């Protein structure tokens, strides 16, 4: 018994706490695609994924935020129906919306770094509003940059075609998501784990 126990290498409690949040948030991104609204103007549907990517960066920070989103992509890759329109499979990650998907973890990391300035997480209510909004806008630009560039390459679009199909239809929705993310973190109902 004694030797058996010594070989157990326990995961540190603070790691478990962040990891559990990352896993549940990944599931939450997946659950959110129940709402996917196809629009005729674009090969990508309207979804809420980006809102949860924002929350990943804001609430989980620069390490666990991207981890959470990466976990989301992994579960999708192995077949759970967590991508837009309840699809799963490695194919989606390479398909026409793959650029958006790959940009999510980078966006979460960017938000985490800008807002928290390091691995020790800050109380979001003390972070200046302008910094939060600035981080979210930068992340949005990144998501659309990668998403449309990949779509243009894969489907052989010109730059202008790609922008009309991949960016313009989503701008109003994106503004709402930024507002919602800010409202959620300002409400104080969900706070980062601070050690």
């Amino acid at each position, binding site marked *: 018994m004694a030797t*058996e*126990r*010594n*070989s*157990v290498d*326990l995961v540190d*409690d603070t790691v478990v706490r962040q990891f559990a949040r990352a896993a549940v948030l990944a599931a939450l991104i997946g659950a959110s695609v129940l709402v996917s609204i196809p629009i005729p103007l674009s090969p990508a549907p309207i979804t809420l994924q980006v809102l949860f990517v924002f929350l990943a960066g804001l609430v989980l920070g620069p390490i666990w935020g991207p981890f959470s989103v990466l976990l989301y992509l992994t579960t999708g890759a192995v077949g759970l129906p967590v991508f837009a329109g309840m699809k799963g499979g490695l194919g989606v990650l390479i398909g026409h919306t793959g650029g958006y998907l790959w940009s999510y973890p980078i966006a979460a990391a960017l938000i985490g770094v800008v807002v928290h300035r390091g691995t020790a997480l800050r109380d979001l209510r003390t972070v200046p509003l302008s910094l939060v909004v600035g981080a979210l806008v930068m992340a949005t630009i990144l998501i659309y940059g990668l998403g449309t560039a990949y779509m243009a390459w894969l489907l052989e679009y010109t730059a202008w075609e790609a922008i009309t199909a991949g960016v313009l239809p989503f701008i109003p929705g994106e503004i709402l998501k930024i507002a919602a993310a800010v409202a959620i973190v300002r409400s104080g109902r969900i706070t980062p784990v601070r050690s």
Partner: protein
Amino acid sequence: MIEFESVSYAFEDVPVLENVSLSIDDGKFVLLAGGNGSGKTTLLRHCNGLLEPDSGDVLVDGTPVAEDLIAARSSVGMVFQHPRDQFVAATVGADVAFGPENLGLERREIDRRVTAALEAVNMAGREDDRIDALSGGEQSRVAIAGALAMEPTHLVLDEPFTGLDEPARRSVLDRLESLAADGTGVLLATHDLRDVCGLADRIIAMRDGCVAVDGPPAAALAELEGLEVRVPGR
């Protein structure tokens, strides 16, 4: 042995445990009684380091929990008050196997334990069922099996009989009795002492975060007046 040495604990600034001292010997079947909010769950969570005392010490087999979390977690098995809080996998078999897997046991041994634990709660053969599709009482049983499968040397159960039907309750009680007889220390929180106090070696009753009564059943029962606990004949 699990020992509490003047343990105090507060949630933010609300004191919940105040200066609690007690010890649970190996092979003893101990009941933890007390009204709602008296601090039973809070106390139990100290046994495997899910909570750390603000002051005082909790020792498992002589070592402070904080000093050797691995020992505390692998030797103290715990059944949560809400079974649904305890699940980490989607199917019955995968969930019950989680503890043994993390103890690094061999696959054969893991399978053996899963089967035995599910038998003890009358859920044999339900390995592939999805936990979400189980009824409330069936979920309580799986939660108990998850702790039994770790074959811990101390077993801590927070109102495990919630929603269990009569045969399942009987079967779990039998298993607890035989575990205690074989040397496992059992600490069971419950509101209803009526038909378990015959099995117990000792009853501890709490009020407002303090141990109000602690002793063998016969003596303890006489002192339980006013402690918001059901006792035989009341």
